[in-house]
């Protein structure tokens, strides 16, 4: 089965447009082998002749297991835990857990800048929360999964909301008195939200 490369780029585009609308376009993708050679993906692999409908190797996953392992946060806030944090609390969290790598004000390093508000018209020189991150929820997802680097996942939900509030404030996105929680975080409007476009490269003669 061959489908054009646009299928992948196209389905991504549609899903992006519909994010948060509660609508999906995924039905068509079900059971559809990816596009053929030369089109960004290959056909799927044929199951051996005589393979049963299901092998059922592996065990059912309990709801408790899924809840314990499912750490991601979606742009609409799905996955965010209870809790809240203020900018002031977040500054204390930052000074203890983040300063050594990201610097006293989030720009000094030695590792990645977390504060960057430089406006950009052509392309950004510094890519930070203020000028390049399109979704505030990504902060929760990323901090919980990967930060602090030597003890990922060690911050409590309150500490995580707090340090996010601090970072959003330092990046000029929220006021000093705004509290972050599972209700307020997904509603934060990020300056870079409208900048992202889905890949339009399709192969062929045109360089994109």
């Amino acid at each position, binding site marked *: 089965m061959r489908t054009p490369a646009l299928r992948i780029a196209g389905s991504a585009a549609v899903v992006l447009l519909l994010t948060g609308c509660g609508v999906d376009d995924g039905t068509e993708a079900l059971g559809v082998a990816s596009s053929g050679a030369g089109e960004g993906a290959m056909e799927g692999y044929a*199951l051996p002749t005589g393979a049963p409908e299901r092998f059922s*190797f592996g065990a059912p*996953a309990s709801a408790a297991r899924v809840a314990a392992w499912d750490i991601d946060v979606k742009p609409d806030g799905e996955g965010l835990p209870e809790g809240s944090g203020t900018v002031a609390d977040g500054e204390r969290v930052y000074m203890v857990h983040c300063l050594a790598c990201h610097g006293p004000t989030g720009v000094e390093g030695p590792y990645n800048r977390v504060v960057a508000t430089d406006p950009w018209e052509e392309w950004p020189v510094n890519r930070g929360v203020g000028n390049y991150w399109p979704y505030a929820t990504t902060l929760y997802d990323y901090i919980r999964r990967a930060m602090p680097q030597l003890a990922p996942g060690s911050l409590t939900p309150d500490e995580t909301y707090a340090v996010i509030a601090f970072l959003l404030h330092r990046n000029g996105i929220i006021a000093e008195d705004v509290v972050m929680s599972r209700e307020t975080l997904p509603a934060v409007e990020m300056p870079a939200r409208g900048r992202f476009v889905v890949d339009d490269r399709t192969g062929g003669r045109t360089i994109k």
Partner: protein
Amino acid sequence: MSSSDGSPLSRRAWLTTTSGVIAAGLLKTQADAFKLDAQEPPGTSPSEFTAVADRLVTEVGARAPGEQPKRYLRASDADLSSSSRSPLQDFHGIITPADLHFERHHAGVPAIVKEEHELLVHGMVERPMVFRMAELHRYPSISQIYFIECSGNGGGIYSRDRMPTEISVQQIDGLVSTSEWTGVPLAWILREVGVRPGASWLLAEGADGAHLARSIPLEKGMGDALLAYGQNGEAIRPEQGYPLRLMLPGWEGNTQVKWLRRIEVTDRPTMTREETSRYTDPLEGGRARQFSFVMDAKSVITFPSYPYVLPDRGWWEIKGLAWTGRGRITRVEVSTDGGRSWVDAELQHPILPMATVRFRHLWNWDGRETVILSRATDETGYVQPTVHQLWEARGEGTAYHQNHQRAWRVASDGGVTFGLGELV
């Protein structure tokens, strides 16, 4: 060549001796074909090299002492988030020895015990399931040869301000490697758990300290995606995701999540840090390209390349690697005059989809300074662009997906340096 008394006689001496009876044209041919001042090696008597064994049988083999290819680590690569690069110039075929496969870690290499590792598949599925490695091994398996390339490979090498010359192909483009991968097609596992109608994306997550996560269109997961546990015939290396990694043939390396522990079936992308803040490509006009999964066609000349010095003019085989994330490479052209003219290089079979292919071109170097380049074409008709074509299309705001033509300048003294110079 030896004289009758057994003493070595140099070819130069032989040519000098015999030049009086050989036409000048033939002498010129001899001079081009054989290095004029080459000395025959002193030689070793057969008894010397057959009398003594260097070693007996061993449980694990080792490279010859004189062959010690190494990955390249930058000075900053003591960080948890770092990379190392494959020695492309030392390879003869398309397969990368597993211990020389490039590395890109976001939080170092975790120590995982295979017997304790589990893969959770959940989300928009009928039957959320946990798979231990022994269970994944029990599923039918397949093996395929695929390249993996970091989307930052070669990034930032050319800019208007910075064009280094004394830099090797390994330092520039060593974030690409090719292996035979063995595992279970992800589609077969998705069939086991039963994907619900309405699903359109996956989230793949690793068990490393970064718990690196990427959103993947379900279509790829139902296509050629592979849950790989084997690499070049053995268990996947820890640096490559032991005991389980996601293979997404032809796609950015970072999407092929290593130490894979969780796949969530969803109806929208998660917008993780690695698909928003990183691995997105600022374009001209204040836009940034997102979900730029496919690696476009690219080729690199691995010989001759810096720091090699061609010791002599004459016949040399220009060699290199080409690959595309959109299927098969159909053509590689080589230019030995700075891009003014191009000739088709030989492609070495096998020419596999989503795998590197070897190319070679026999070149009779006249000893004059020049620039050599290669450009690949894939089966979609895409031709590897010049750096100027890429800048024209995208601007200069991204270091990702920098698949433009590479060039090597060959000086008249045989020295090879990177870059186009002013010729192109």
